[in-house]
């Protein structure tokens, strides 16, 4: 073979000068790429494609010289991201060349292009053996380098002996390479570790530093997984450490000590002083850093003893030097080391005066990576006195330095979680004033969730969830903050930006607004003064609160109005429409409940304002009825939702609400239709009026118009504030009761009038109000509220108060012995009819699928149609089926009370087990909650009751149990790392275990060989043929013949 090739090469080289160009040289390729890349990317791509095709052709030739050049070119092209696995066989050919030049290119190509080529490398085993045993040490070195990168388990088994032999090579150059290559062999073929670990350890006594270095390296890598094996050799490592001056080696030994120290604690006593000495004496920053790492991460500082603290102090002093240098890399690693020490000894952040300025400085660094790192220890920095300052600093970091720069997502997430975590630390003990904290959260929200600018969705989701959780936790734990919080959340719920940008946040927003909807009372501040206001003013406040609630209610559910008005782009209730189509079913589950709660609260307010006893004037009752009608209509959007939970919840509620509606209107829809028509008319005139106004002059009023979406978004906040005040004044100014009633009677438009200018004229213009007035005069009767609304509905929600519960509380509740979750609660109704339908429908479907080829299109269409009809029929039947309804109805009651629990659980809070198990106590507990200040803390600015988390006492160890539960999930996550070299095979490797039987696999591999060879050959041929379509047939057959010849020879050499 070789003589033939040589001849061929010779012929080619002689032909070249005469202008027959078979190959484009590498330089040409690179030049070409450079010129084309200046032009256009498309042209470059065309050029590259052509170049690859050329390489393919060159690889198909028999001339090794040409092939080698092609491989080199491909190795270059690989940088541009092409997948080159198709040329592996040819690379192997070049690699096996007898010429060093070609061999070198071949190995280079292999290192660059091969990825775990199990089958391919079997073919070359013998050649590798030959290279490893070459008389020329340069060739051996090349082979070792190549093998270390491309080795596979089978190859590792086969060449293991040869590599081990190289450990005693006369040249240190080969010895060190052999040691390092052997590590890769260990990884692929773990059993070999048992056989030759001792030989690696022997190499620690080698005369050459580079060999010792390599051996230490391998030991260090193995020790990361299995430190125990090396404990016995500690004295030896220590000697090497003391002998050498080579910092590379020292750092590696320190790394080794770091892993050993975790299993052998006794070594610390001897080694620690040496490391400290080294740290103090050396000038190399990398070594100082490694010393600190070894001491801290190696767990050498554990106790609170003064000795340990002294060492920690010394380390910190060294680290402080890193920061004074001005080099940002030193700053970064210094910060890392500092973090590790402070995690052990947080007290140093105060006791050493230089530390806290350093941390603060890092927090404001322009480099977001350093900022993020510094955040990790920010909580040690914070106490009640400086929390204000630190939070301010953190918030400023959320503002981009200039318009062009965006704050990285990771930093945003880090800052937000840090703010929330530090604030809620120790049950909010660091918060001086909760209103201030709400303001902080509000600002943070504006800078993150509301500003948009996310690179990734996951960051947005994390932040939104964090905020949501924090709001919920605040609302449940701090009763006094509920009112301002609810006001803030109301803004969020009415801001269309939020539902677009962070729908997940709304889950908690809706929950809180539902649960604490009654906190939406009038003016937020100065609640103390409100206590001694007279009845009348209280009434006014109630009216304002009611206005807010109705506005929120309408914002969420008035989608239908827009559809009826055909508003299109200028929707008046964009949020409602978006909400109905929201993809996050978790949010929908919550909002269903919340809407009912809001409605309940509206009912309550009506009773407070207009009610006499349990009676209401008919007008108001009609309005309530209309609200309910709208609510049912809106919830109906989800009746066929594809998510099971949403459907279940909606249907349960709908059943109940429809009963309520029936109880109210006694089957008479005329009032509803009338009211609906009126509302639509109202919004129509409103729109026309707005348009006129807008045309007349785009004054300051424009910002307050509801249709003008953008303006509204911006001014939303001010709108609410500004609209409340004049409104409030107006109500209070009209002192006699009648006039109040008159203004309030048209309750539905009130909330819109809040936004618009509230002028008497407009009220008069509004047909709705005038008509209602008529009705009022006509029928000033009073009717009692239906029991379902007045008593049953509130009992769903108000029976128990929600209290924060520690997350371990649930663990302590014993599962009742009688409880068997596998036993069905009630027997499944025997619905034989329906079952039959189902099965036949499925059969139809199945046959449909299987024979879809044979069935004509018409038939399939008919079949699907048929099944569709059947399905509908079934639905209809199920609707009428008494059993079916019975189960849902009886379940729905249970669900309603339960769903509250479920809901609370989702926000990490469960209703107190104590109260839930003793229903008789509910009234008492209601009273007790206010008298039972579990933890009232005296704070500088504000005295606030923060409810502590309730738990059931049952001894310690909760955290462990929780962690136990959590850990499987975390473990799963960790496995994702693509960069991790899989050295798990070495983990807990038992050196003394008997050798496993390898003969079997050996046989297997003999059998496979032939097959693999043929397959590879075939692949190569196919590829060659593809590229050669244009070439003459004779040439193809010739090269085919060649390959077969070669392959035969190779086969012979392998089998030998």
């Amino acid at each position, binding site marked *: 073979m070789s003589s033939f090739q*040589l001849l061929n*090469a010779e012929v080619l080289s002689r032909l070249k000068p005469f202008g027959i160009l078979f190959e484009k040289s590498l*330089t040409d390729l690179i030049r070409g790429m450079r010129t084309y*890349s200046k032009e256009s990317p498309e042209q470059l791509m065309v050029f590259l494609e052509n170049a690859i095709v050329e390489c393919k052709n060159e690889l198909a030739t028999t001339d090794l010289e040409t092939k080698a050049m092609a491989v*080199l070119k491909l*190795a*270059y092209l*690989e*940088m541009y*991201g*092409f*997948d*080159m*696995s198709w040329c592996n066989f040819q690379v192997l050919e070049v690699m096996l060349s007898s*010429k*060093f*030049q070609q061999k*070198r*290119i071949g190995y*280079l190509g292999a*290192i*660059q292009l091969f*990825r*775990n080529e199990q089958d391919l490398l079997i073919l070359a085993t013998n050649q590798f053996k030959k290279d490893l045993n070459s008389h020329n040490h*340069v*060739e051996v*070195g*090349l082979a070792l*380098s190549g093998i*270390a*990168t491309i080795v596979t388990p089978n190859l590792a088994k086969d060449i293991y002996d040869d590599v081990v032999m190289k450990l005693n090579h006369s040249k240190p*150059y080969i010895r*060190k*390479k052999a040691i*390092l*290559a052997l590590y*890769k062999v260990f990884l692929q073929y773990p059993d070999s570790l048992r056989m030759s670990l001792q030989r690696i350890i022997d190499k620690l006594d080698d005369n050459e*530093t*580079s060999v010792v*270095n390599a051996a230490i390296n391998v030991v*260090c*890598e193995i020790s990361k997984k299995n430190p125990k094996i090396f404990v016995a050799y500690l004295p030896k490592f220590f000697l090497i450490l003391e002998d050498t001056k*080579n910092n*590379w080696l020292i750092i*590696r030994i320190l790394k080794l000590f770091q892993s050993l120290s975790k299993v052998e604690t006794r070594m610390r006593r001897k080694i620690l002083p040496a490391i400290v000495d080294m740290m103090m004496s050396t000038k190399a*920053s*990398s070594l100082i850093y*490694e010393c600190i790492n070894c001491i801290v991460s190696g767990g050498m500082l554990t106790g609170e003893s003064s000795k340990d603290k002294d060492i920690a102090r010394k380390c910190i002093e060294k680290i402080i030097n890193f920061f004074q240098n001005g080099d*940002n*890399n030193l700053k*970064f*690693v210094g910060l890392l080391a500092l973090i590790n020490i402070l995690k052990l000894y947080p007290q140093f952040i105060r006791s050493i005066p230089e530390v806290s300025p350093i941390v603060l400085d890092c927090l404001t660094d*322009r*480099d977001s*990576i350093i900022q993020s790192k510094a955040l990790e220890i920010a909580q040690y920095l914070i106490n009640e006195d400086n929390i204000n300052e630190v939070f301010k600093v953190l918030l400023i970091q959320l503002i981009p330095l200039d318009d062009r720069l965006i704050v990285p997502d990771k930093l945003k997430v880090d800052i937000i979680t840090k703010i929330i975590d530090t604030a809620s630390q120790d049950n909010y003990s660091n918060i001086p004033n909760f209103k201030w904290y709400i303001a902080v959260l509000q600002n943070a929200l504006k800078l993150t969730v509301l500003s948009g600018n996310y690179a990734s969705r996951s960051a947005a989701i994390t932040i939104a969830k964090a905020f949501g959780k924090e709001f919920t936790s605040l609302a449940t734990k701090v009763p006094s903050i509920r009112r301002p919080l609810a006001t803030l959340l109301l803004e969020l719920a009415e801001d269309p930006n939020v539902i677009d940008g962070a729908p997940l946040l709304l889950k908690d927003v809706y929950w809180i607004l539902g649960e604490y909807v009654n906190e939406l009372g009038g003016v937020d501040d100065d609640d103390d003064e409100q206590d001694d206001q007279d009845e009348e003013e209280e009434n006014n406040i109630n009216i304002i609160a009611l206005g807010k609630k109705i506005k929120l209610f309408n914002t969420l559910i008035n989608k239908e109005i827009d559809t009826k008005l055909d508003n299109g782009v200028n929707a008046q209730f964009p949020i409602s429409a978006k909400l109905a189509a929201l993809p996050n079913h978790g949010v929908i589950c919550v909002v269903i409940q919340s809407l009912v709660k809001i409605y309940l609260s509206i009912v309550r307010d009506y009773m407070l304002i207009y009610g006499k006893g349990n009676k209401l004037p008919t007008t108001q009752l009609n309005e309530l009825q209309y609200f309910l009608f709208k609510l049912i209509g809106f919830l109906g959007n989800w009746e066929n939702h594809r998510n099971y939970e949403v459907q279940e919840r909606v249907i349960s509620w709908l059943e109940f609400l429809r009963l309520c509606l029936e109880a109210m209107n006694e089957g008479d829809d005329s009032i509803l239709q009338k009211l609906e028509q009126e509302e639509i008319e109202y919004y129509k005139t409103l729109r026309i009026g707005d348009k006129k106004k807008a045309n007349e002059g785009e004054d300051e009023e424009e910002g307050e118009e509801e249709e003008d979406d953008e303006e509204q978004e911006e001014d939303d906040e001010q709108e609410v504030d500004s609209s409340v005040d004049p409104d409030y004044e107006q109500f209070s100014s009209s002192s006699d009761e009648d006039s109040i009633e008159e203004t309030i009677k048209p309750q539905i438009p009130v909330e819109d009038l809040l936004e618009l200018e509230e002028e008497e004229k407009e009220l008069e213009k509004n047909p709705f109000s005038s008509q209602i007035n008529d009705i009022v005069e006509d029928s000033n009767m009073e009717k009692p509220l239906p029991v379902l609304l007045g008593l049953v509905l509130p009992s769903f929600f108000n029976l128990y108060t929600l209290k924060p519960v520690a997350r371990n509380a649930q663990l302590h509740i014993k599962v009742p012995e009688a409880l068997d979750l596998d036993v069905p609660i009630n027997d499944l109704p025997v619905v034989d009819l329906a079952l039959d339908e189902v099965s036949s429908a499925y059969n139809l479907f199945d046959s449909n699928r299987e024979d879809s080829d044979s069935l004509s299109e018409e038939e399939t269409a008919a079949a699907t149609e048929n099944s569709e009809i059947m399905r509908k029929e079934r639905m209809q039947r199920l609707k009428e089926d008494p059993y079916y309804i019975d189960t849902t109805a009886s379940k729905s009651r249970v669900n309603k009370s339960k769903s509250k629990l479920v809901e609370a659980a989702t926000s990490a809070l469960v209703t107190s087990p104590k109260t839930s198990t003793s229903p008789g106590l509910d009234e008492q507990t209601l009273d007790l909650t206010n008298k039972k200040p579990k933890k009232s803390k005296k704070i500088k600015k504000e005295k606030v009751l923060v409810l502590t988390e309730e738990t059931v006492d049952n001894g310690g160890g909760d955290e462990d149990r929780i962690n136990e539960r959590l850990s499987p999930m975390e473990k799963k996550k960790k496995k994702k*790392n*693509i*960069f*991790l*070299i899989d050295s798990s095979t070495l983990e807990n490797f038992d050196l003394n275990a008997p050798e496993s039987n390898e003969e079997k696999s050996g046989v297997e591999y003999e059998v496979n060989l032939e097959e693999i060879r043929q397959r590879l050959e075939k692949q190569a041929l196919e590829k060659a043929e593809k590229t050669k379509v244009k070439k003459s047939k004779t040439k193809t057959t010739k090269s085919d013949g060649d390959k077969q010849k070669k392959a035969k020879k190779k086969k012979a050499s392998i089998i030998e």
Partner: protein
Amino acid sequence: MAIHFLFLLSRQGKIRLNKWYQTISQKEKTKVMRELTTLILLRRPKMCNVLEYKDIKVVYRRYASLFFIVGCDSDDNELLSLEIIHRFVELMDKMYGNVCELDIIFGFEKAYHVLDELLLDGVVQESLKKEVLKKVAQQDELENMDEFENIMV
């Protein structure tokens, strides 16, 4: 202590050399390189040269128009990784004689050879600069012998 990958990036975002000590698919490689390219080109001169990327640390340093980028374990010594980069640059400087980007583009296989003598599967195999250069020279010599033989035939 092992390096997972090393690649060279021009200021225009072009890959000039890449070396992977990990068997991952071409697609993954391209993805990682693309992501790191955007991250690193956005960094400003005075910022620190260490990034945390996925579960590893990426250490980079800029020499003239080229970024040298190295991926290492998160518990590795960042300063040492910087040192490895520096060592590589010094070696290339010695070999090409005042190395520039064009040298690396046109003589990329030489750069790979140096790298292969400096690192073996991501581990520093030789801390002496002289030794590395000597070995590369020896290999070149052997290559030339081949050519010489060629001519003789």
